[in-house]
C-alpha cells in the first residue's frame, strides 16, 4: 500500500497541476499568447528541439558554464588552500573576501559590460568571479577543519610538508571542497542564466527566454525554463554524484 502510494502520489500531484494549468489556459479568460495551453508549450518545445535552436542554446550556455566554473574552481580552491594553510594569507585576504562575498555577482554585470564589452568573455568572467567566493570560503573552512592530531601524527611519523599536504590535508579537506564546488556550480548556473539576459550574448538559454519576451512567446519561455530545470537536475546528479563517488567516498571520508 505504502509503495503504491509513494509512486502514485507524486504522479497525481503533477496531474493535478497540469490539469489546473490547462483549465486556467482554456477557461481562465487570459490571452492565450500569455497563458498557453500544455499542447502549445509541448509544440514550442518540439519545434525548438527539432530545428536545433534549443541544442545550440544549451551548448552555448553549458560552454560558458564550464569555462566560468573552471575559473571559479581553480581560483577558489587555490586561494582557499593558501588561506587555510598560512595564517598571514588568511589575515590579509579574509576582510576582502568577506566583504565581497555577500555582493550578488549580478550587481557587477553592468560594470563588466562597461569594462569588457558585451558577449562571451565578460559573461564567463562574471560567472567565474561570482561563484569563486563560495569555493574559497568552503575550501578555507575545510583546510582549517583538518584535525590537528592527524597533522601532528603525520609529522611525527616523518612525513614531509608535501606529503602532509597530499596525504592528510587534501583528503581531509575534500568533503568541504566538494561542497564548495557543488555550491559554486549551482551558483554559477543560476547567475549565468541571468547574466545571459543582461549581456546580450549570441545564443544561450537565458538569451532564448529574454528574446522570446520581446515577441510575447510565452510558450517558448516556458519550454526553455523546463529545459533549464532539467539541465540543473542533471548537473547535480550526474556530475557531482559521480565525482563524489570517485574521490570522497573511495577515500572513506564520508559514507556512500
Amino acid at each position: 500500500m505504502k509503495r503504491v502510494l509513494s509512486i502514485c502520489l507524486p504522479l497525481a500531484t503533477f496531474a493535478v497541476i497540469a490539469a489546473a494549468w490547462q483549465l486556467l489556459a482554456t477557461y481562465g479568460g487570459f490571452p492565450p499568447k500569455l497563458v498557453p495551453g500544455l499542447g502549445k508549450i509541448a509544440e514550442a518545445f518540439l519545434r525548438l528541439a527539432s530545428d536545433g535552436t534549443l541544442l545550440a542554446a544549451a551548448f552555448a550556455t553549458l560552454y560558458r558554464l564550464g569555462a566560468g566554473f573552471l575559473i571559479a574552481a581553480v581560483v577558489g580552491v587555490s586561494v582557499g588552500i593558501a588561506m587555510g594553510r598560512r595564517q598571514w594569507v588568511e589575515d590579509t585576504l579574509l576582510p576582502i573576501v568577506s566583504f565581497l562575498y555577500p555582493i550578488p555577482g549580478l550587481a557587477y554585470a553592468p560594470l563588466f559590460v562597461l569594462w569588457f564589452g558585451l558577449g562571451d568573455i565578460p559573461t564567463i568572467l562574471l560567472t567565474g568571479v561570482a561563484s569563486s567566493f563560495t569555493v574559497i570560503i568552503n575550501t578555507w573552512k575545510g583546510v582549517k577543519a583538518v584535525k590537528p592530531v592527524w597533522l601532528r601524527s603525520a609529522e611525527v611519523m616523518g612525513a614531509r610538508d608535501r606529503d602532509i599536504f597530499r596525504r592528510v590535508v587534501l583528503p581531509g579537506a575534500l568533503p568541504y571542497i566538494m561542497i564548495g564546488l557543488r555550491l559554486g556550480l549551482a551558483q554559477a548556473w543560476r547567475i549565468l542564466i541571468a547574466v545571459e539576459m543582461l549581456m546580450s550574448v549570441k545564443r544561450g538559454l537565458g538569451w532564448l527566454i529574454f528574446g522570446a519576451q520581446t515577441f510575447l512567446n510565452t510558450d517558448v519561455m516556458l519550454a526553455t525554463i523546463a529545459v533549464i530545470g532539467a539541465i540543473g537536475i542533471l548537473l547535480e546528479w550526474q556530475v557531482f554524484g559521480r565525482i563524489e563517488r570517485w574521490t570522497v567516498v573511495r577515500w572513506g571520508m564520508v559514507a556512500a
Partner: protein
Amino acid sequence: MRKGFSWVAFARGAAGVAALLAVWEVFARSGMYSTAMTPPIESVGRVIWSMLADGTFVKNALATLARVFIGLGISFAIAVPLGVLMARHWVAERIFLPVLSVLLPIPSLAWVPLFILWFGIGNLATILVVIYASIFPLVYSVWTGVRAVNPIWLRAATVMGADETTLFRKVIWPGALPYIITGLRLSFGRAFIGVIGGELLASPKLGLGEIIFNAAEFLDAGTMLATLVGIGVIGVIFERFVFQPLERVTVGRWGMVTGTQSLKN
C-alpha cells in the same frame, strides 16, 4: 580559527585592503581606460558622499530591503507550515517533495521575463522573484530540521503528556531551529541576489539594482562602484549584526548547537 582580537591580524587585513586600493588607484590613473570607466578612489568616494548626503542611498537601499523582507516574510509564512507538514506526515512529503525538486533547480531569475509579461514591470514581479529565490532553502531546512529532532525527545514529551501544540512549541521548534536559522541565512543571500537581478531586469522605481542599471545607461562607473560598496556594507552588516547575534541568542541559549556537537564528539 583564531579566537579574540589580534593586532597582527588586523594590521595584515588593513594592509591587504590598502594594497587592493593602491593597485586600483594605479590602474585607474594609468590611463589604460578613461577615468569615467575606471574612476580613481577619490571620485568614487565623492559619489558615495553625495549619495549619502542627499539621501539617495538610504532611500534606494530601503526600497531594496523592503522587497527582500516582504518576499522573505511571505516565503517564511509558506515554508514553515509546509516544511513541518512534510516532515510530520508522510503523505504530504510524497505530494510536495517532487514538485519542490522540479522547481528547485530552476534559477529564480529565469522567471523574470515571464513574470514581467504576466504581472508587468515593477514591484510585484521583483517581489515574486525574491519569494521564488528564497522559499526553497527555507522549506528544505524546516523539513530537515523537524526530521532531525531526536525521536526520543518526542516520545519523552508525549509520555509526559504534552499535546501537539506544546510538542511543537517546546520540542520540535527549538530542536529544528539551528537548521531553520541556517536556511534563513541561505535564503537571505538568495533573496538578495534575486532582488538585485529583479531590479536590473524588471526596473521598479527605486532600488540599488535600479541605480546600477541607470548608471550603466550613462556609463557612470563611479556610481556603480559606489553602489556596489554600499551593497557590500549592507551584506556585512546583516551577517555581523543580524545573523550572528540571532544564532547566539536563540540557538546558543537553548543549548542546541553545543548540545548536538557534544553528542557528535
